[in-house]
């Protein structure tokens, strides 16, 4: 009996250690929520505000979710931000050319797939390091966006109301006073992308093989995994997600500008890294990425509502990312 009890105790201790190592970021996130709830008592923890936050992070979320796919293999895609801008420009130019909304959207998404294909070929068949290959395509896509648009912002009558109205619309879910509460369309898209990426990475052979490549590409290759093809497909999916995120952005601002997606890339990578601190093996998982995205979005929303200076806000957000990754790696080293 005593031996059994001590085994149980040890097992319990291991469970707790494991929980703290992997849930620290989640606990930190919940603490941030508590912090803002106390400081902004009337408006932070409301349905309207959380629907706002979900809409505000939706573009970043889509790009970060699909970025997770390549990061599972230990790769990067630095070109997602300029692909997002390029997709917006291409759709807007087609709209200006009086093409229907669906044509503009599909062509822009197709360009995302093609751009991802190009990245994938460079990384997986030519064998260039992802950092270098996608740094190159970052510049190419951005240059192309400038070339096609002539450096201008495309807005106003050129952008059809059907397209810009999408980002303002949603499914009515209730009333707050006089106003109808909408479940935003952009949030819905982000949730769909989340579900698809989760199913793909966690529930399919494709996903398991990507994790195998991330664990040890050589071993995966020897084990019969078609590493090159899978890598190519993963980069295509990331390119597609970048284009989708860019279209969501263009819809939200009812305009397209050749630089508007630029800021999304680093935030997406930061979100994936934040998520990685939640996994025992330090692997990216899309649900972790979701928490990472939410941490960034909630900090932006809460600190703005607390009227923290924008520059201080940036320093705080950066410091929290560093703190999360640092403490996670310290905890793992001390294991």
């Amino acid at each position, binding site marked *: 009996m005593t031996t059994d009890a001590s085994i149980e105790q040890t097992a319990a201790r291991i469970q707790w250690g494991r929980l*703290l*190592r*992997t*849930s*620290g*970021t989640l*606990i*930190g996130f919940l*603490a*941030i929520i*508590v*912090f803002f709830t*106390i*400081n*902004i*008592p009337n*408006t932070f923890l*409301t349905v*309207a*505000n959380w629907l*706002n936050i979900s809409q*505000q992070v939706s*573009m970043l979320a889509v790009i970060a979710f699909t970025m997770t796919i390549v990061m599972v293999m230990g790769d990067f895609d630095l070109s997602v931000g300029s692909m997002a801008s390029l997709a917006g420009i291409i759709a807007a130019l087609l709209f200006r050319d009086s093409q229907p909304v669906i044509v503009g959207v599909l062509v822009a998404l197709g360009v995302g797939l093609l751009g991802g294909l190009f990245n994938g070929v460079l990384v997986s068949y030519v064998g260039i390091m992802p950092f270098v290959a996608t740094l190159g395509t970052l510049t190419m896509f951005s240059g192309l966006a400038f070339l096609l648009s*002539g*450096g201008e*912002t495309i*807005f*106003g009558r050129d952008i059809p109301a059907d397209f*810009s109205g999408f*980002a*303002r619309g949603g499914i009515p879910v209730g009333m707050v006073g006089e*106003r109808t509460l909408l479940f935003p369309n952009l949030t819905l898209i982000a949730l769909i992308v989340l579900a698809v990426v989760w199913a793909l990475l966690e529930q399919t052979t494709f996903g398991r093989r990507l994790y195998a490549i991330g664990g040890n590409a050589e071993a995966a290759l020897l084990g019969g995994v078609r590493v090159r093809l899978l890598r190519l497909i993963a980069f295509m999916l990331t390119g597609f997600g970048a284009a989708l995120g860019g279209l969501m*952005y263009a819809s*939200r*601002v*009812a*305009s397209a*500008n050749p*630089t*508007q997606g*630029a*800021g999304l890339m680093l935030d997406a990578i930061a979100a994936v890294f934040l998520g990685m*601190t939640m996994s025992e093996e330090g692997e990216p998982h899309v649900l972790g990425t979701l928490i990472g995205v939410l941490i960034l979005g909630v900090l*932006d*929303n809460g600190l*703005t*509502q*607390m*009227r923290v*200076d*924008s*520059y201080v806000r*940036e320093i705080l957000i950066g410091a929290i990312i560093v*703190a*999360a990754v640092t*403490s*996670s790696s*310290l*905890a793992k080293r001390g294991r």
Partner: protein
Amino acid sequence: MRRLAVIAIVLCIVSIGFGTVAAQDAPSVAVITPYLAQPGTQFLVEGFEAAAEDKGWNVNVIDTAGDVAAVISRIEDMVNQGVDALVINVDPAQVEAGLQIAADASIPVFGMDAGSNPLLVTNVTSNGYAMAAETASYVVDRIGCAGRVVMFVFDPYPPVQKRGIIADAIFANCPDIEVIDRITPDVNDGGIADSRAQMEAVLAANPNTGSISAVWAAWDQPALGALQAIEAAGRENEGIVIVGIDANPQALDAIAAGGNFEASVAQDFSGIGAATASAVERVLAGETITQSVIYVPTVLVTNANVGDFLDN
């Protein structure tokens, strides 16, 4: 990881203490822009903040570092927070989603050199017509209402088109002024290089001393291109008068150098900021503003006062 959790929990406890300090009776106004890093925007915001400080407001300046969608997000956050007024410095057409949310919540939004939009109470900016009138009448006065003038215009862009139309009218009012060329330069290279090439062609077509009296440019870049062409052709001593608009740093240097580039017009950015603050004050006091645009006077910059601008 435990450490982060502990830090966060400590923060929560500490925050209970100062959580309510910010709540005061003074009106709170948020200024939201993606362009705070640009010098013009900084003068706008400083002008606004100085005026707001005198009025005792709580001002929160939010910079989204070039991200226009984030301007919408921050408008949503500030509306949610129940500020008394919002001031934006960004093209209102791009943030209409946010403006609509502010309108639904009955929070007034003011444009500070932003652009006109029905969802804005008003937009405070400089008057493009007046700026062109300043430089065109400077030219008319300098050449005694008589001579041959080259114009650089850009009609595809409305804010610049309205400058050209005023200069046309002022030159037409002098029977002895002949506009020998009305050039629309290619602006893809920034506007200087093509303007220079076009001016070189005009100089070649009018080789005699005194055959060109003045160059009127609707903004500074073509004026700078014309100056380069005139100097390269060795015709800087013929008394050709060059004027531009905007008073950009390069133009100020050229004016200070005392050559052919004699005048430009500077927008009073800090004055626009201060005028925006008084518009906000009027609305908070219950007044209805009917002017959809409020103009702040601009300043003609010549060799006599260029020193005031170079110091900035």
